[in-house]
């Protein structure tokens, strides 16, 4: 039985990365627990509740993988509301609070031995990174098949993790396609929305492949539709949802979709599960 008093552990910000053009306001925070206790155990796809002391608390998907050499927590945060705005004022050395991890996780075991496709839109790449870094980790790489990615951003200025992309591209049997919404001078990758590019830019097998997608709700919808059109089984399409939450433990009542609590039963769902859920997200 787990007791949780809703109070966070202290964590120190060890690094802040300005991800996007400064006006677009996505920052990545690297965190390390300030106490001597062990690092939390987590799985790819889980989330944590991050407290900005004296301001409030909000859920964020983990953007790091629980690999053997993982000794820090990474979250990417878009400045949107009160908590995120306050967090963006924070610098290296500042203290925040963390509780969790919460929620289910990406079906890692079921993905082993299969090919993996990641399709992301904007900051939707952040929660997928917890699995990308897992699958592409040198110790684990051979447990998974071929990896393809289609990463969509509004513009070159909106790109995330450009400092990681080369490492990912250099992984064995891995290809990455990038796309932006509109043509732009000096851009020699794809242009257009991801769902329009799937058929041409990715090699979509209907067997033995798991598709992970995350991004704005409208993009998830368009991408899953396209994948189903291409004959992919809805069970093989995995996504992760976002909801307002207070507790993260299936109690406070905010993240219901029908009888499901996104914080506990989710945030990861297959498209098959989404089809069975009421349209309430």
């Amino acid at each position, binding site marked *: 039985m787990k*007791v949780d008093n809703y*109070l966070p552990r202290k964590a120190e910000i060890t690094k802040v990365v300005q991800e996007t053009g400064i006006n677009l306001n996505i920052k990545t925070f690297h965190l390390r627990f300030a106490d001597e206790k062990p690092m939390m155990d987590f799985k790819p796809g889980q989330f944590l509740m991050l407290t900005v002391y004296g301001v409030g608390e*909000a859920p964020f998907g983990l953007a790091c993988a629980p690999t053997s050499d993982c000794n820090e927590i990474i979250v990417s945060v878009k400045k949107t509301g009160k908590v995120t705005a306050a967090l963006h004022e924070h610098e290296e050395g500042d203290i925040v609070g963390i509780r969790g991890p919460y929620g289910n996780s990406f079906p890692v075991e079921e993905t082993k031995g299969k090919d993996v496709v990641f399709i992301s839109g904007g900051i939707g790449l952040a929660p997928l990174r917890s699995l990308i870094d897992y699958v592409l980790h040198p110790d684990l790489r051979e447990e998974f098949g071929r990896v393809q990615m289609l990463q969509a951003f509004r513009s070159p200025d909106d790109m995330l993790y450009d400092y990681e992309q080369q490492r990912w591209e250099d992984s064995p049997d891995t290809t990455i396609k990038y796309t932006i919404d509109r043509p732009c001078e000096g851009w020699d990758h794809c242009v257009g929305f991801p769902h329009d590019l799937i058929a041409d830019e990715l090699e979509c097998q209907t067997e033995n492949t798991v598709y992970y997608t995350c991004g704005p709700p409208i993009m998830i919808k368009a991408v899953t539709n396209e994948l189903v059109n291409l004959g992919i089984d809805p069970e093989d399409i995995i996504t992760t949802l976002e909801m307002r939450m207070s507790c993260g433990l299936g*109690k406070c*009542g905010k993240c*219901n979709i029908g009888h499901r609590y996104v914080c506990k039963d989710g945030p990861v769902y297959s498209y098959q599960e989404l089809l069975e859920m009421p349209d309430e997200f």
Partner: protein
Amino acid sequence: MIKKLTNQDLKALLKELRQEFLVIAPFKVKQGRLMKVLYQPVKNDEQLSSIYLTDQPDASPKEYFLPRDDKLGEETAGADCEPADWQDQPRIFLGVRSCDIAGIELFDDVFIENDYIDPFYQQRRENSIIIGYSCSEKADNSFCQEVGVNPVDNDNVPLMLYQKEEGFFLKINDEDKLKEMGILEKIENLADGTDEDLEALINERQEAFKEDDFTIKSELPFPEKEAFSSVNWEEVTASCLGCGVCTFYCPTCFCFKFFWEDVEKNRAWDSCMFSLFTEHASGHNPRESQEQRWRQRLMHKFSYHPKNYQGEPGCVGCGRCVSKCPVNLDIRKVIAHFENSIVGEGVKGNEG
């Protein structure tokens, strides 16, 4: 074991219990220009004469288990710290009716679960003894029997009180618990009552509760898909102001939010009837209109809770949400509308 008490016996017993326990009982108190029946701690022996058991209290005692403003502690103190404002004097709740007992049982299911325990709730709950109270007449707008609550009798509390024309019966349901808390020895010497006499009283009362013009025809859980596809919620809930009074008076509503006073983290009641309840920081809101929020309230009680908790209803039928609603929106009418809407679909509840 059944005991027979005069009014004086009960007062003497409570006086004795007050030596060790904080006794919390319903009193008629002035709130603004209205008189209300509310649970309050007994502050001195003189107050024992003013305990008011006649009518259903305006509010259930839920705020004593899940306070409306609960200090959880300084958030910088970390996950290992103890709850901040906790008094460990054991408490006795006197005169709790079956609907409100069922409300506390529902809280037990939610906050003391196999995979998660809320330490704040658990401490308050384990520190409390409930003395139930048998209803002698139907409370306004109540429909408790439709959701499996017996207003007259209750075996789920350690002690159950039945008011007679003169004096009381006191039924002892859980001798072990009472012994452990040091209460049994204070009761043992009271005059014995007989099973027959108590049974006669219970049967007589149950007759009075037989007639009810409202029935819930569908099995629980109500079907979830149809709630989204086949019911025009606006038709019956358009007058809702979104004030949330129904949820604040509801003995089973437990939804909450956190709020901060500097680094002190607090918990307060929240309500699914408020638009901000689900609104994302981005402005996106999964339940942006009031009828969607009504759907959530009804379905949480009659579909989602039963689905997640072995068929248990999420409503105890106390009728307070009906009595307190400023626009007379009646949950019984919304249930009937729901049932009529899905009948056309050939659905009879329980999607399994």
